[in-house]
């Protein structure tokens, strides 16, 4: 009987450890701050299909990992943030969509790069208690010449009592923090107003 019980525990532990738990890190759109004024400019946003397919695995708690698609999950948040700062935002699949860039009269194109980290202080639960999202960005004109660049770092924390109903809460908070900082940074950039 003891052997069966221990075997059951080992099998169950095997299910619960050494796997990457899928989460979605998209921040709640209602938590994203709006810019105080809009810059009258048509702007492109490039997140390629290849970017959207990038799956990242980082540590969670209890020896487990978490996995997610940072570009796919943050795409609407970035689009929404840019839409709050600029009068018109057009999604692009690549920087070389020259015809679309000309047709839509895009004066600037936003190119983000995303890096993430995560961790947990918990030995028994897998959702992360800490998450960080760093967005490096370049803003270029239609010829590819750089107009501006920058970096924002968003951090989010969540305790067990909070994340038991939303395992990705720390990540979502990090996304909100990063995007709100991005909004502030873009709004104060003189180079992309020209």
């Amino acid at each position, binding site marked *: 009987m003891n052997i069966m019980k221990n075997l059951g525990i080992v099998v169950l*532990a095997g299910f*619960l450890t050494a796997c990457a738990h*899928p989460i979605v890190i998209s921040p*709640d759109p209602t938590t994203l701050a709006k810019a105080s004024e809009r810059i009258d400019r048509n702007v492109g946003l490039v997140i390629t299909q290849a970017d959207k397919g990038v799956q990242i695995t980082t540590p969670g708690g209890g020896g487990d990992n978490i996995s997610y698609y940072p570009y796919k999950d943050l795409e*609407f948040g970035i689009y929404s943030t840019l839409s709050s700062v600029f009068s018109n935002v057009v*999604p692009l699949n690549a920087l070389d969509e020259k015809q679309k860039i000309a047709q839509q009269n895009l004066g600037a194109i936003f190119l983000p790069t995303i890096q993430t980290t995560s961790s947990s202080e918990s030995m028994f639960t897998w959702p992360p208690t800490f998450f960080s999202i760093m967005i490096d960005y370049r803003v270029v004109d239609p010829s590819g010449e750089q107009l501006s660049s920058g970096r924002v770092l968003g951090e989010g924390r969540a305790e067990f009592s909070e994340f038991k109903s939303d*395992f990705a809460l720390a990540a979502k908070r990090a996304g909100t923090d990063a995007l709100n900082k991005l909004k502030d940074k873009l709004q104060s950039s003189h180079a992309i107003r020209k």
Partner: protein
Amino acid sequence: MIRNIVVVACAGFVMGCSMTAPQYTPSVANIGQMKAIKLTPMAVEKVVPDAALGSNNESIGLRASSLSSPTGSYSSYLEEALKSEFQAAGLLDQASTTKLSGILVKNDVNVGGFSTGDSIVEARVKVMKAGTVAYDKLKTATLQFESSFAGAVAIPKGRDMYPVTVQKFIEVLISDNDFISALK
């Protein structure tokens, strides 16, 4: 003893619990497509459940867990998704005489398989233009996705694929030439 408590606590994380589907996030690809084809702004009215939908309007079974809608029902989830997607594309005008409504017919996520899962959202969408029917069709979105034997992976995956299925449904709708013609 402690080991057993840990196992039970962990098991509670993956089995027999009730979860809420993620809040809907509009698809940037859908927004871009809608902006490009320049549809008429419209009002989104009620999406109601079909009588045959049964309890899947309130809750979807994911193995021993259940997935409920953050809006109270999945028909209202679809209604809110349509509103947020059209709003993000600048096409929502609740005062418009062009009015979209729907009936949710099928709504399910299946993570019972060992390696793949699938999902379906099917709804009849009607567009009224100044009191006359401009569009009335049944549209279906299905997805297949990678899943796992382990409930700790399969159940959250199924939960996260629900809003992706709704995004796909809206993509199917706005890619229908009859829908585009009705809203030009």
